[in-house]
């Protein structure tokens, strides 16, 4: 038999340089900052200003800078202008949007339900980023979240996905601690949620191979006093309004909290065996998605040290204290930020940290090698991050002001295998994220795109990075039950109802085509080039009729008029297009190609054609 058909029937500069270390590895770290001293750097590795401003904007905001900002930067002759630009960007709203998105991707734990929990989570997280809250403080707030899930500053969504999806209380606790170790320690501990590490994980993760399922339960037990809680029992669950009322009043509570009184309410996922606030490692075959547990009541204990709550301390407060005090907490974030800026972590995969391979001595005891590609630099940056009070912006300043960040990787060749040479490589060249491609196309062509979000009726958003999850933008966000609008699109600044729908659907479709992630299913965005993405950019009707069609792009219209009225020569036109879309000047061969193409065409055909070729160019789609 050759083929299978499967039918789916489915349904929805200050501080830019950290203090130089006194310890060993000085040379390595100095090279990271200033380039190798032993040999003269290859001049072709120098990243010019125009490519630098493109890269730094894309990495820090996911968006491209305004042309005016570019020209201002280009005309600035100060030697400190790059550091000053970094400083300017990390103080911008676009930076806040991009890094809110980063943390939402990291936690991947949204619950939609009309945005009741998701929107407060999104905007509260955004405020923490905007305020520059230290990473340890952010993590602690998430772990210790209590209160009404729909309130304005609620972070309940961090817990909500598991609370709603789990069918069994112990799975909820196990899944949630797995999420915490994965996102905050870089460790996927779910293997030992089913079985001991021994005889299973020796070839996979030395550290986890020495840990037991009971140690995992000890971690989950830090969460066992927390419940999704419904404060009363008289909701009209036969009506949609009654169900919504329940959702709005649903709380996240902690039985360790002296102020909490269960009263008449009851727990979501209620199960009297587990309602006393303890982790009872006791389950029957077929209950939940893990092998049966048979360990009695398990006390909270940190997996590496056995440390538990102090007297008078709630279990989750203890977890927050111990977790954020663990060096692995800082190492994880350093590794993730390094991967963001350099395309690959010191440790890969980012959730695959092995505590048995952290340093040479530990690795040797396991008969293994060190996991990190550069222990000296990684530990140095981690010291800096801790010393700077887990200040994410401070760490970003160090990374982006380094020599290593500011080289032209496209000219670096394959690179070496050791030390800093590994990073001086064209492996750093990457395709833009789906959100960055979306924003770049519509921003550069000045189409005026703006988006609406479920549950918000009083404002619009102008970037894919401002969307709280992959179900947005939502073309139905302004609709009412009668088939009309809660708020007319025109009153929010949309030129027409047609434009309103076009903006939403075109962004949804473009983001999907380029592989946006799925937080609900915890799938990361795809940045591979596929036949589908290539065909979309080359042939998709939207690109041709709406983006490059007649009278759709103010930028194109202006350019055509300038050329027809002889305000730009053909050579100037080519340079304008290259600088705008590829962020560099054309080389002589490219000038000839464009000149040859343009000579027998009208401007209104030739210019959109040339822009089309640039939107499909590797230098537009890659960074």
């Amino acid at each position, binding site marked *: 038999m050759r083929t299978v*058909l499967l*039918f789916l*029937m489915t349904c929805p500069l200050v501080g830019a340089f950290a203090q130089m270390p006194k310890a060993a590895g000085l040379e390595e770290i100095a090279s990271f900052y200033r380039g190798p001293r032993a040999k003269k750097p290859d001049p072709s590795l120098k990243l010019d200003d125009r490519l630098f401003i493109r890269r730094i904007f894309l990495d820090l905001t996911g968006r491209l800078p305004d042309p005016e900002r570019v020209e201002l930067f280009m005309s600035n002759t100060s030697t400190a202008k790059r550091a000053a630009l970094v400083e300017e960007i990390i103080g911008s709203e676009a930076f806040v949007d991009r890094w809110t998105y980063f943390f939402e991707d990291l936690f991947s734990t949204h619950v939609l339900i009309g945005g009741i929990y998701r929107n407060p989570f999104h905007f509260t997280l955004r405020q923490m980023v905007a305020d520059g809250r230290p990473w340890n403080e952010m993590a602690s707030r998430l772990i210790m979240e209590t209160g009404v899930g729909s309130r304005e500053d609620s972070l309940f969504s961090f817990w909500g996905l598991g609370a709603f999806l789990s069918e069994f209380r112990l799975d909820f606790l196990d899944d949630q601690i797995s999420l915490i170790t994965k996102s905050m320690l870089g460790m996927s501990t779910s293997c030992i949620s089913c079985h001991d590490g021994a005889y299973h994980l020796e070839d996979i993760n030395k550290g986890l191979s020495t840990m037991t399922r009971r140690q995992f339960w000890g971690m989950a037990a830090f969460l066992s006093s927390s419940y999704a809680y419904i404060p009363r029992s008289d909701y009209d669950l036969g009506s949609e309004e009654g169900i919504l009322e329940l959702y709005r009043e649903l709380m996240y509570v902690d039985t360790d909290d002296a102020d909490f009184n269960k009263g008449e309410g009851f727990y979501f996922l209620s199960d009297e065996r587990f309602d006393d606030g303890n982790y009872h490692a006791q389950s029957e075959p077929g209950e939940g998605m893990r092998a049966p547990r048979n360990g009695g009541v398990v006390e909270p204990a940190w997996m590496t040290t056995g440390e538990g709550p102090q007297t008078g301390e709630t279990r989750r407060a203890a977890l927050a204290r111990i977790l954020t005090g663990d060096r692995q907490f800082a190492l994880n974030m350093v590794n993730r930020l390094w991967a963001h800026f350099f395309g690959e972590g010191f440790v890969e995969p980012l959730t695959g940290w092995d505590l048995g391979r952290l340093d040479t001595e530990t690795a040797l005891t396991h008969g293994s090698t060190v996991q990190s590609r550069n222990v000296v630099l990684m530990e140095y940056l981690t010291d800096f991050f801790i010393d700077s009070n887990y200040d994410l912006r401070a760490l970003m300043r160090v990374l982006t002001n380094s020599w290593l960040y500011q080289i032209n990787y496209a000219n670096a060749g394959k690179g070496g295998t050791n030390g800093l040479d590994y990073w001086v490589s064209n492996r750093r060249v990457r395709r833009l994220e789906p959100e960055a491609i979306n924003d770049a196309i519509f921003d550069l062509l000045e189409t005026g795109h703006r988006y609406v979000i479920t549950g918000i009726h009083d404002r619009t958003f102008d970037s894919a990075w401002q969307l709280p999850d992959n179900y947005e933008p939502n073309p139905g966000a302004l609709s009412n039950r009668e088939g009309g609008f809660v708020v007319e699109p025109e009153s929010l600044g949309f030129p027409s109802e047609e434009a309103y729908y076009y903006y939403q659907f075109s962004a949804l479709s473009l983001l999907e085509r380029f592989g946006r992630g799925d937080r609900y299913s915890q799938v990361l965005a795809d940045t591979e080039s596929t036949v589908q993405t290539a065909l979309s950019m080359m042939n998709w009707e939207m690109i041709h009729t709406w983006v490059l069609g007649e009278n759709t792009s103010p930028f194109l219209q202006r350019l055509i008029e300038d050329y027809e009225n002889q305000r730009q020569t053909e050579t100037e036109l080519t340079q304008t297009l290259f600088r705008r879309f590829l962020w560099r000047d054309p080389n002589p061969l490219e000038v000839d190609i464009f000149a040859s193409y343009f000579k027998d065409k009208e401007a209104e055909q030739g210019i959109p054609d040339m822009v089309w070729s640039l939107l499909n160019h590797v230098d537009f789609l890659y960074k």
Partner: protein
Amino acid sequence: MPLLAERTDRFALLRSISASEQVHERAVYQMLTGHRHSAALINEIPHFGSVLSYIFDGQRSQSDTLPSLMKIGRNGVKNGFLHNKHGGLKLSFDGRIENLDHFYERPSSRFDLLTQMQQAAGQLQDRRGDLIDTQQRSRAMMLDVELGQLLGTETEFDDYSPTAFFLRQCQTAARVINANKGTRVIQLTLDGWDQHVSIYGEGSFDLPSLSRALDDGLAFLIDDLESKPAVTGQGTLLEETLIVAVGEFGRTVALNTGGGRDHYPDILPVLLMGGGVQGGQTIGVSNENGAYITDRGWSQNRSMTMGDLMATIYSALGVDWTWRYQDTPSGRVFEAVDTSIAGPVFAIEDLFSEVPS
């Protein structure tokens, strides 16, 4: 479903299978991977068609110009740890390859320009070179007249009913199978069964409409594949093709207050036909209103699972479903069908046994 009623001797019906999940995304994920959803491994686990694409890669010949996997409609699960080329080709809900045709009325000059720009970029040794290769492959597909005919890009249509959509998917699948150009797995999609309200209401996606779509599509496939000779020369194409019709979970039996039915994992029906399946049989028995299983109908002392169904599909294609892959990014051994969490799984051999007369 009158058309299927006339063809009961062609298909078998499983009535003793349960799903493990009752949330769409997680249940679909399990159905397409044979694995429970795990946040730690979500980006590593491939679609089962990607696994088969990898396994069959060495058997492909020069005339195999189509990818081993085609996915019509949905593309939620991708190639995981396997190479991008095993991700499969995604087709639109109407069974056509999206954007194969260039919308622009004078495409050749634009493409000439792009080709010159690609050449001017030189031989790029980084990921940008992959894009240029992909663009050139895509361009070759655009120029492939036979491909256009196979994937129905040359036929315009304006009927957007589920019946028309699904029938077009089935017609595309039949053409691709008959063309024998290397495709081994085709995933089709008939959406709209999430009928929490007004399941018998009047609309394009009520139960009668979707049933009609399924009836038309499956009957067409049976008849079309049965009318064509097998690639091996013995028997028909239907005998070489396993057709599986399955949802991610069942629906509650009683109507809710909105006149709909909600998610229900305990029991769901599965139709199988072709590929050696002995038609005219049911396996397993449910109670009178279909709420629970009363007779499992097979040799194992438990209900059938999605894992068992997946093992059956692998087995029918001649692939050892205990196949394992060691070199994953996480280091964790990948099993074609997960047994580490779900426990042992078994192919449903009774499907292929002679039905007693």
